């Protein structure tokens, strides 16, 4: 039996993505002083299907998930998944003018088994967007049930 076989109740986790494990593309923390935390994690390659993962242990429970990012005219759509299960689906980060500190919230993400990995994956783009860059400054998991 491993840690992840145990149905352990979850606790809050706040993740500031700074250094992930790139699966596809090049990912860096990009400094931008208009943004909280002075920047955001992004894929400088700007290619569809760029992907990065982070180890993330979350126990079972229902979570309020909040994520802060920046929109611009060159942004793609972002999938966020826990162990391959998508919890944020094709979040469109495109906007004509740049908007920093955009908050996206999922109010009831149910986790039935403890997780090991969170992944960010570029999954398409708005037809008006010029590229496939995505961004994330911060993501929090706050357990509500």
């Amino acid at each position, binding site marked *: 039996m491993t840690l992840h076989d145990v149905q352990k109740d979850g606790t809050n986790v*706040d993740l500031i993505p700074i250094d992930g494990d790139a699966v596809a593309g090049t990912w860096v923390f990009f400094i931008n002083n*208009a943004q*909280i935390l002075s920047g955001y994690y992004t894929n400088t390659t700007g290619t569809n299907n760029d992907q990065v993962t982070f180890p993330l242990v979350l126990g079972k429970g229902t979570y309020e998930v*909040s994520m*802060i990012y920046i929109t611009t005219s060159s942004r793609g759509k972002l999938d966020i998944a826990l162990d391959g299960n998508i919890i944020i689906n094709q979040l469109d980060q495109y906007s004509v003018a740049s908007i920093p*500190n955009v908050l996206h919230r999922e109010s009831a993400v149910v986790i039935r088994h403890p997780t090991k990995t969170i992944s960010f994956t570029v999954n398409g783009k708005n037809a008006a967007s010029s590229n496939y860059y995505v961004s994330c400054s911060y993501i929090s998991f706050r*357990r*509500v049930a």
Partner: protein
Amino acid sequence: MTYILQPVGKNYDLVIFDGDVVQGTWALVVNASKILNGMYANIASHADADEFTIPLALGKGTYDLHLVYSKDSDQGKLDVLVDSTVVINQLDTYDAATQHNQIHEETNVAIGGGLHTLHFLVNGKNAASSNHIMRLHMLSFRKVA
């Protein structure tokens, strides 16, 4: 065999960038002088009893709390509660001059297992203060027992 385990507690750094608003208008504000390049503040409403909450699941234990906040001449007093228990009582955040990134410590705060609600509540103000604004950055929980 299914195991249901209660977490025994862990350190947790809560980044205060969004909450569930009970009263007032709370917003993320970028400010390069603040730790994390921003703050969560009720600048638009700035009324007594302004409040927001954050779901909290930490695990049972005794914690040292460190609140990072700012002081200014327009600020009120702050209560922080875990459920209905006051853990920080009328912290006076008034100062005649701006003081960024102040740290307030509360030691040996007992927190039970299970789900809780963390309340941030404006509760009065210093007689010298011009308003009831609150500027908050982060709250760390360091498990000590």
